[in-house]
Structures are given as structure tokens and as C-alpha cells.
């Protein structure tokens, strides 16, 4: 058993989740594959979205996977970093917009 919660080698085993629940596991992977196909958005655009979200959900497996995927798709490091910023901006914005709730509550409780 690994001594840390995250082991890079575990990413290769991702597919094994189907072993303990085959039907829904397979359905997930089918869905996942379909989502990233070329569509109204290009596979390239979706890869950048995935990279941004990977950072927001702070998944080290996804970050490794979508950095590599970006390289494979010829995405530049500048584009990758801008995508990370887009994710970070939404994430910090989502925190800050709650400041309005704080202000509302403050005002309501104050004389």
C-alpha cells in the first residue's frame, strides 16, 4: 500500500474501476470518451477546458493527463497557463461574490 494518498501510477489503473461495478463504470467511460470527441467545440478547446477544470477541482491525475493531452494536441504553454488562469479567476470570483452575501448579512444585522 502506498504511503501517500496520491500515487502517479494509479492513473494507469483508472480503467479498473469498472471491475467492481462493470455496467455503470463502462457507461461512465463511454460517456467520457464521447464528451471529448470533436463536436461543436473542437477536441482542442475541450482539452483546454478540461485542463482548467482539473486545476479548479485540484486533481493531480487530471492535471498530468491534460497537460500531456495538450502537448499532444500542439497546445502551447501560454494557452495552457491562460486556461489555468481562467479557471482560477472563476474560482476566486466565486469566493469573492460571496462577499455580497457577507455584506448583506452584515447590513441586515447592523443598526
Amino acid at each position, binding site marked *: 500500500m502506498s504511503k501517500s494518498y496520491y500515487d502517479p501510477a494509479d492513473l494507469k489503473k483508472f480503467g479498473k474501476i469498472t471491475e467492481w461495478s462493470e455496467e455503470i463504470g463502462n457507461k461512465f467511460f463511454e460517456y467520457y470518451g464521447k464528451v471529448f470527441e470533436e463536436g461543436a467545440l473542437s*477536441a482542442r478547446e475541450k482539452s483546454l477546458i478540461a485542463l482548467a477544470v482539473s486545476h479548479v477541482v485540484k486533481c493531480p491525475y487530471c492535471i498530468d493527463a491534460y497537460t500531456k493531452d495538450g502537448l499532444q494536441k*500542439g497546445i*502551447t504553454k501560454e494557452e495552457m497557463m491562460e486556461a489555468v488562469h481562467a479557471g482560477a479567476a472563476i474560482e476566486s470570483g466565486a469566493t469573492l461574490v460571496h462577499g455580497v452575501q457577507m455584506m448583506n448579512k452584515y447590513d441586515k444585522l447592523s443598526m
Partner: protein
Amino acid sequence: MKESLHKRNNQLANGKRQLEILNNGIFASGELPKFADKIAEIGHFPLRPKSLEVLQINVGYMCNQVCAHCHVDAGPDRKEIMTKETMQQCLDVIKKTGAHTLDLTGGAPEMNPNFRWFVEKASRLGVKDIIVRSNLTIIRANKKYYDLPDFFKEYNVHVVSSMPHWTRGKTDKQRGEGVFAKSIKALEELNERGYGLPDSGLKLDLVYNPSGAFLPGDQSAMEKDFKKALFEDFGIQFHDLFAITNLPISRFLDYLIVSENYEDYMYALVEAYNPAAVANVMCTNTISVGWDGWLYDCDFNQMLGLKVASKVTHISKYNEKLLNDRNIVISQHCYGCTAGAGSSCQGTVT
């Protein structure tokens, strides 16, 4: 400038050592399946050639560049150069074979002192498609090469050029400082002569191979991106883009090991194995001739020192019938040819 593995006496300059690495470790332990077993599953073992279409001739390992990923371990310090005598033997063979394509590679093929003589002779023999794998910078490397675009045009040479990315940073990192600017200049000159223009018969194709331990993306999507970027930024046009997978041999293997990417890369290749690519791997329609006339199943096997498994092993004894009746020599590097849409010197194979 960096030196070749050969010059540095690096152990990976030796094909046998490379094969030891490829056949041991994760492949010997059974962690990953061997290529032979994988193709046996679909009835393709032993791998056999179909009819010969391409004669790929490596006219020497000398090159003006020392790219980090080079599977030839080429560079200015390599002195292996095909002689005129061996070239003549190749010409005699071309007359007789059914091959419609002559594919000249290196090193930088243009650096062979008899390169132009060879192309002229081959052209007079009426070879349908004469490909020169030009690294582009050679055209700007020295005054004596400045007229190469005119020479190419005169003999209707099909130019296939490597271009790792449309941005400067990536190109220079893989191929050396200043390579990007020189490549752009060379492409402009080829365009000026009509090369690569939409309806032009002067064929100009680009080769893309990843600058790092990852596989190439979808070839047609990459072609679209390359075309758009090169045209918008520099007004450059070209015909097709071939996305080629880096095979884990020579300098690329050295890079994989030093950067601790070797195992992950082999995993990625095996994971991307596409059975549909096996029937059309390059060695099924190509023979590779080394600078000294020895025959190989492909340029990769040439670098590993794996000669054809045939009674005929040298161009001077060439016999197409006997050669066609051979088993292709394979090892784990072959996974590079069957990953994703497959990979060959002409790009994908599926």
C-alpha cells in the same frame, strides 16, 4: 553545439545496447506485452512484407543539426557517407524494382557530396516520386546550399521537411537555437518557387514530431493548426502534414531514460497500440538502404543494426523476389509504428 551519442562514446550509440534495454525491464517482466505477442494475437506474426513501393536510401549520417530527438544520432561529427559506387548500385536497383518512390534521407542528404549527381541520375531513370527529407536549415546553412530550392524545382523533387511546431520556442528547444527562423526563411524560399502552393505540382510536405515524451495528436487537426498559424504569421503554405511518433531508439531513447520518462512512454505506446495499423506499417512496403549499402526493414532497424533477415543483405546482391520472402525483424520499438493512427515516414497508416 552538442555532439552525437557516437562522438560522446555514449553506450546508446550501440544498437545492441538499445535492444537490450528494449527487450528487458518492463517487457521481460511481463508488465507490458512484447510486440511479437501483440501482433500474434491478430495473426500478423511473423510480420511479412507486401509488394515493394518505396526504396528509402540513407545517404549518410552527417547533418548540420544535432536534434535532441534524432533517431539517426546524426550530426556534423558523423562521417558515415554513402559513396558514389554504392549510389550507382542503388541506381542499378531502381531501374529493376517495382518501387515507385525513392526516399532520400540522412542526416542531411544534401551534405553528401554526390547528392545532386544522384538525384539527377534517378530523375533521368524516370522514378515517379523522388523524395528528399530536407531539414530546411541546410538551405540556409552555407552559400553552397542557397540554390537548393532551384535544384529541387529543376528535378521536381518532392520536399518533405521537418517542422516540430509553428512557434519558435518549441522548435528551437528540440532542434537548436535559431532553427525556427532559418526554417521559416527556407519555407519562404520554397514557396517563392511555387513549392507548397495549393495547385502546384511541386510538393512540399511537413513532418511534425512531438518535442518531448508524448505522442502526436490527430494528424488532420494538427495540419489545420499548422496551416492556419504558418499562413497567418508568415504567409507560408504547404501541402500535407505528416504526424510522426518518436520511436524509442537512439537519442530519443537517451532522452527518455535521462528524463525518467522511458517507462511511461512505453506504457503510452502500448496503450495506444492500434491493431488496425499493423497491416500497413512502413516496413511492409519499404526497404531501407544504409550508407554502406546494407539492407534493413526500415530506417529504425538500420540504426539498431538489425539487417534484413534474408539471404540478400546488401544492395550489391539485391533480389526483390528473395527479399519479399522474408520475415521482418521486430522489437519493442515497433510499438511506435502502431500507436494511435499508426506512424510512418508518410505519416499515419490507417
